């Protein structure tokens, strides 16, 4: 389960690598035929799409007939003028066309300059190029929006999937323990509340390990991607965005995710302790699922409206604040005071709920009658 994203990425890379390798199959290449060896070398640098294998037009023609190449480019030097002619069964791709033209232009210019026998100063004058300078402001609206959107989506989906996975796991585990006498033996060795705290801590440890594996995996990708041919360009083009997204995920938002995961885990544990049979867990866990979905879909819909009143209010409500406050944080739509208040409320609710469920835990777990969720909870209160 933990490794599935990495397996998915490896598969994607594998497929990408294979497709890029396959893309340059022999039949798709263009043979370059020219007597100028230097020019030939320049034109066939791209081994994937070109070949220098056929030295004469006759050989190239044969290769074309036997479909070993898609065409050939014949380049001749006619008294100082380069002329190139392409023959083939398919058109040159735009990229190939531009590339050939660029190389030929550069070569033609060298030849022209040589023929003109210009002085050093004239040469330098001719080489003067116009300048096109680009100045891109940091506050570029579109780029900023993209970063915010990616950060928010990443955060939202990470939290959603962790919650979906672990709330169910915890509830099921507790439901399967409930009513077994091994729990009585354990409780005769340690207070039930300590066992409960240990269970929550253990679950949190597993989640933290899960996140740490993703973090290490993510960091590995970050450092490895620039070294692979097929990821280099994508990575370099988006490095700035990636850096900003990472920064957005590594700040207070992470704290909201962690606290959110704990409070939902505790609530899931409470729900799991209300059923006798593990197969009833899905029924018991429904309130948690509804809350998670309310947070997830609410945040998804209102993710781009950080100043919406619902987002503002929900960012202070425990359970929901983990979904909504990050929207405001990413969009810079809040101040330190509000964040501190929201965090205090979330932290106090998490601790309060944990202590409360811990105090009820023995009463809830030691019941063995299948009396329904509400009645089971009431009984737990009475037993306490």
């Amino acid at each position, binding site marked *: 389960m933990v490794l599935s994203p990495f397996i998915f990425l490896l598969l994607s890379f594998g497929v990408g690598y294979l497709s890029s390798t396959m893309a340059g199959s022999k039949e798709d290449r263009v043979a370059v035929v020219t007597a100028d060896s230097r020019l030939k070398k320049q034109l066939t640098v791209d081994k994937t799409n070109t070949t220098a294998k056929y030295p004469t037009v006759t050989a190239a023609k044969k290769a074309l007939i036997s479909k070993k190449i898609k065409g050939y480019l014949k380049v001749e030097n006619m008294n100082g003028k380069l002329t190139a002619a392409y023959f083939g069964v398919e058109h040159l791709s735009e990229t190939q066309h531009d590339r050939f033209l660029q190389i030929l232009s550069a070569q033609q210019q060298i030849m022209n300059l040589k023929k003109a026998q210009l002085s050093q100063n004239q040469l330098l004058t001719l080489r003067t190029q116009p300048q096109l300078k680009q100045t891109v402001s940091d506050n570029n609206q579109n780029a900023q929006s993209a970063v915010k959107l990616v950060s928010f989506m990443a955060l939202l989906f990470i939290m959603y999937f962790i919650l979906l996975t672990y709330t169910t796991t915890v509830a099921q585990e507790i439901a399967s323990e409930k009513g077994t006498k091994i729990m*009585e*033996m354990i409780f*005769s*060795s*340690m*207070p039930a509340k300590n066992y409960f705290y240990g269970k929550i801590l253990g679950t949190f440890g597993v989640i933290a390990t899960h996140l740490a594996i993703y973090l290490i995996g993510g960091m590995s990708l970050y450092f490895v991607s620039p070294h692979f041919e097929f990821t280099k360009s994508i990575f370099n083009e988006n490095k700035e965005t990636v850096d900003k997204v990472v920064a957005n995920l590594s700040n207070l938002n992470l704290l909201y995710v962690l606290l959110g995961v704990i409070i939902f885990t505790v609530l899931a544990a409470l729900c799991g302790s209300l059923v006798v049979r593990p197969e009833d867990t899905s029924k018991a866990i429904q309130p948690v699922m509804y809350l998670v979905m309310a947070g997830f879909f609410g945040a998804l819909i209102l993710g781009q409206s950080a100043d919406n009143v619902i987002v503002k209010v929900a960012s202070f409500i425990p359970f929901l604040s983990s979904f909504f406050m990050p929207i405001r944080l990413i969009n810079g739509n809040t101040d330190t005071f509000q964040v501190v208040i929201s965090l205090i409320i979330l932290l106090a609710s998490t601790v309060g709920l944990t202590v409360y469920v811990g105090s009820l835990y*023995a009463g809830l777990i030691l019941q063995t009658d299948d009396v329904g969720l509400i009645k089971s909870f009431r009984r737990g209160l009475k*037993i*306490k």
Partner: protein
Amino acid sequence: MLEVKGLYKSFGTKEVLKGVSFEAETGKITGLVGKNGAGKTTIFHSILNFVESTGQISFSGVPITKETYQKIGYLPEERSLMPKLTVFDQVRFLANLKGLSTAVVRKRLAWWLERLQVKGKAEDKIKSLSKGNQQKVQLICTLIHKPQLIILDEPFSGLDPVNTDLLKQIILEEKKHGAVIIFSDHDMTNVEELCDDLVMVNDGQIVLNGDIQSIRESFGLTRIFVRTPRSLEELQQLAHVKKVSQTKFGSYRLVLEDEKYGTAIFDEVTKGEYVQTFDQQPPTLNEIFKMKAGVK
């Protein structure tokens, strides 16, 4: 010594324990008996701090706290272990909670497995063991840390006669070592055979408390077992005899109105006749249990 004083517990409006008080002495076995729902499990759960009750519970003069847990060995009513673990891992897990190191567990487990005739099973998975052997493992988990207070909730249920005897021997050995032992059982024969003292609970209250022999004798020697050529009808005609029943061994069991009529009955049934057996006894615990529990 375990002292329970004025224990009250209610579940909502239902009062489950109504001022339960008793003592279980060191080096003695105390039987806690009562009908289903009488409050036995709630008493155990209160002693073990599973539920919060009002009243006082102390062991060796100290209230039961986290620190006391290491001195307690508890065997619950039903058997339940972690099926995927090996015997060693299961015992180690629970023994570690009791403060035992793994090295000590390994050493003591070997001894216990031999003692309980399950030698060589340490690395077997719990789920691969027979029910009887699983019960033995659970007993090991209860006793491996040498508890000073042992609580056994119906320890013999589901055991065959051989393993029942084995468990009885072990309980008696623990008694010799000076542990306070409380156990509950519905089979009064086991209680009578093993226990020094008896605490009987009915409807959340203690209805009998004391040493078993005194309790039985307090009901008077009102039972006579007699082997005589006389018929059932003849015996039923005797004065002050409330009830006569024939035992499966051919003797009769007479219930007297009062133990003082025993002499008169003896005179009557032995008049000019040889009597193989004449034994005047108090009621059995089973009878006392039924009387006190309101079972007719």
